[in-house]
């Protein structure tokens, strides 16, 4: 298809670029089989190495979902609603300390072997045997995984950890025991020709440094799926080359930040659309070991003083909506937001510079001659803010924070560093203020836990997995652990409400804008894209296993 396009373009120089995108699927033999070629457009940062090891963080984004499948699908955009995938059902037992999966019948690996409960048990025990493969640390809560009967797998937990369902059921791809038991070192196994149960296959023959070609698995266990015949995933070194490629109709599924998206993309073709569903927050992290920042009055004042809307409009072209201090991403998780509680905190810390000033004055801070507030002992409220200089949107957003804070008498100097330095400083706590984001998860609990759980933190100088501000409160930790012991939605909501209160009272971090899934799509040649009305999966191609869901649901236009 692309070749036809190129030739066509050569012959008819000057034809509209936009037209190219629609010239797809010349295949006239439209029987019932999969057809059409879909192209994903997402900067890879380099050429492909054509490895698909599902237990390696570098490669699993390219195999988990369409090639390797997990036990269940947990949809972040529907508050973590779980639906069956390779498991047809599951039950919690023994006070939420056992989890029993019933494995679907009739599923086959691409080599023809049937999927059995033994394969599932083998997969999880493989992670136990090789901790390096256990990238989600599921064995930090599991104590055993065994097969039960012909089609069940029982997982036992050290302590109740219901929230780990997401990592266990949604993030681990199931492999074929007969293949993997022959591999001497699974941690360095490149897996060039992956054998999975998924709707698509890929092999060393269909992968080059320039492109990964996924081909529809015609023997897929879901009858009639997939409908798309081929999915191409070309490699791009930089964001702007990939953007150009997308905007000129050479790809249909974009997953990138695009500046000025209206003039650059949507205006070029009525079939071009975008949707940026928010999934987590971009926040200002506050180093709580800093003597001045330890003072909650300073943090509350900053939370009132930051103009979140401005940060969103200037820094993010408005694509990333303003956050709230409760830390609940709206509209994605709106049902979790305790609005009455939030309203008692100045309408969830709505922008209010005069209130910020009065808080500082009440706490004994006085303005110095330069207009900057000073502590009673004479230390000025003057801080550096660590930022990732590679993200132009963040650099711009932090400039608005700088302006906002300066207006109430707090001086902030941005330090825009390159990604690795930024990360090592952030993780090891070598900063005063920092702009950054956690990864979140299928419910707001995940992000709140990343922020507030003292177990995720580490002493200054040691890299912390999350909780970079070094917040520690035994009562909060207890709340966080309670969540893991309940499957009741009402109780989970009540716990999250209490965690929101911690955010509002203690202000350990200040969420500024929401971080979104970057997603552009072309309805000219394919339908079935997720939309706000039908958010069946996270839409960006870099979300695994969600992108596998998209590849199954997309339909080429006849």
């Amino acid at each position, binding site marked *: 298809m692309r070749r036809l396009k190129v030739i066509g373009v050569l012959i008819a120089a000057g034809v509209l670029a936009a037209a190219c995108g629609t010239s797809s699927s010349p295949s006239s033999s439209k029987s019932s089989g999969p057809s059409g070629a879909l192209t994903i457009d997402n900067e890879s940062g380099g050429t492909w190495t054509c490895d698909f090891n599902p237990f390696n963080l570098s490669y699993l984004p390219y195999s988990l979902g369409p090639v390797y499948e997990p036990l269940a699908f947990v949809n972040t955009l529907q508050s973590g609603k779980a639906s069956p995938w390779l498991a047809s059902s599951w039950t919690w037992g023994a006070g939420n300390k056992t989890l029993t999966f019933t494995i679907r019948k009739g599923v086959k690996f691409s080599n023809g072997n049937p999927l059995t409960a033994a394969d599932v048990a083998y997969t999880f025990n493989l992670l136990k045997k090789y901790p390096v493969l256990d990238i989600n640390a599921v064995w930090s809560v599991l104590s055993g995984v065994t097969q039960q009967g012909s089609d069940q797998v029982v997982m036992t937990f050290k302590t109740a950890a219901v929230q780990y369902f997401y990592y266990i059921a949604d993030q681990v791809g199931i492999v074929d025991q007969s293949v993997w038991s022959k591999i001497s070192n699974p941690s360095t196994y490149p897996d060039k020709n992956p054998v999975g149960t998924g709707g698509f296959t890929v092999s060393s023959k269909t992968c080059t440094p320039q492109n990964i070609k996924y081909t529809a698995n015609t023997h897929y266990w879901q009858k009639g799926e997939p409908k798309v015949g081929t999915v191409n995933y070309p490699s791009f070194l930089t*964001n*702007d080359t990939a*953007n*150009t490629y997308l*905007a000129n109709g050479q790809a249909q599924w974009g997953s990138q930040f*695009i*500046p*000025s998206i209206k*003039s*650059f993309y949507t205006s070029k073709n009525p079939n071009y659309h975008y949707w940026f569903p928010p999934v987590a927050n971009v926040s200002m992290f506050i180093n709580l070991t800093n003597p001045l920042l330890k003072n909650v009055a300073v943090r509350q004042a900053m939370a009132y003083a930051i103009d979140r809307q401005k940060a969103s409009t*200037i820094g993010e072209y408005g694509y990333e909506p303003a956050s709230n201090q409760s830390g609940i991403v709206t509209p994605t998780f709106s049902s979790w937001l305790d609005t009455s509680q939030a309203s008692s905190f100045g309408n969830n810390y709505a922008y209010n510079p005069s209130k910020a000033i009065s808080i500082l004055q009440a706490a004994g801070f006085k303005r110095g001659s330069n207009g900057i507030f000073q502590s009673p002992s004479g230390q000025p409220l003057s801080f550096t803010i660590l930022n990732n*200089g*590679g993200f*132009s949107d963040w*650099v*711009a957003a932090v*400039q*608005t924070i700088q302006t906002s804070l300066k207006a109430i008498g707090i001086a902030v100097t*941005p330090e*825009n*560093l*390159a990604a*690795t*330095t930024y990360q090592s400083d952030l993780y090891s706590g070598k900063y005063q203020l920092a702009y950054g984001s956690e990864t979140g998860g299928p419910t707001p609990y995940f992000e709140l836990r990343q922020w507030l759980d003292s177990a995720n933190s580490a002493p200054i100088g040691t890299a912390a997995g999350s909780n970079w501000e070094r917040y520690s409160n035994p009562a909060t930790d207890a709340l966080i652990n309670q969540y893991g012991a309940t499957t009741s939605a009402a109780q989970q909501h009540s716990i999250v409400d209490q965690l929101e209160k911690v955010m509002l009272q203690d202000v350990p971090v200040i969420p500024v804008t929401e971080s979104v899934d970057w997603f552009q799509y072309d309805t000219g040649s394919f339908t079935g894209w997720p939309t706000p009305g039908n958010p069946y999966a996270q839409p960006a191609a870099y979300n695994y296993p969600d992108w596998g869901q998209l590849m199954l649901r997309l339909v080429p236009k006849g």
Partner: protein
Amino acid sequence: MAALMRPGGTDDGGGSAVTTAPAGLVGGWSGGVSGAGSVRRMGRAITSNRKATAGTALLVLFILIGLFPGVIAHDDPSAQVYARSLGPSGAHLLGTTAFGQDLFAQVIYGTRPVLLIAFGAGLGATFLATLIGVAAAYLGGAWDGVLNLITDVLLVIPAFPLLIVIASYLHGAGTGVMIAVIICVSWSYTARQLRAQARSLRNREFLEAARVRGERSLYIIAVEIIPTMTSLLVAAFLTNALYAVLFSSSLQFIGLGNPEVVSWGTMLYWAENSEAFQTGQALWILIPGLCIVALGAAFALLNYAFDEIGNPALRPVRSIRGNRVKRPK
């Protein structure tokens, strides 16, 4: 004598910059001429050679802009205070960036860091090269062997890849660091030229005389040898400055400079990141690029002109030889 090509026709990332060493100068009119004399000569040459005049005019223009940006542009170049992506207008001569900054102010204020790098790295590399090249030639023996080896080694290590590797470790190099790094990778070529030149002088009478007078080595190098090489030094400076401009813009374009510094290279970085070309903001890419070209051309024209001045054979037209006579220019 051949006009040498600086190694690395394609490795410099930015352009391939004509760097014909003014070989003619070496044999032509440098030996034994006093420093002041050659400076005067150069002054005359600038006014008499059209290329030199044009190059000088361009360079002076940029220097003035770099010295007094505030006189020309009235906006803070980094302040994100205007509407995004405006087209050119009376208020914003070149429009605004996607971040709401005044583009004209950015171009004007962006001149200074580029000039700082051009002159800083140009002078620095030339100075270091003089030190090493002349010391090697004058001291001779083991010193010469070691210094010459270092020079030769650095000469063959590809400069731009090395620069990229170093810059990537430094993360977000500001102007000062950029100058230092460029000096480190670019002095060797000049050092080699100067060594050759200094060696040819070593046994000249006026140096012998100085030695007989009992002058110290340092004095001889500084007062007797270096002034004789003024023209060569000027040419080397021009080449090094040109390379510094191209190197630094290239590094900044790929994001290895400090993105907060407003300079032409970082402007190109931000413009490319903001898809300027395809969102109706072509000026954001075109103008900084053209500025780099104009500054580069200033250095290249001067260099070209000095080549002609130094080597009379290269001067345009005049049918010195019985060649087929062509139309005068």
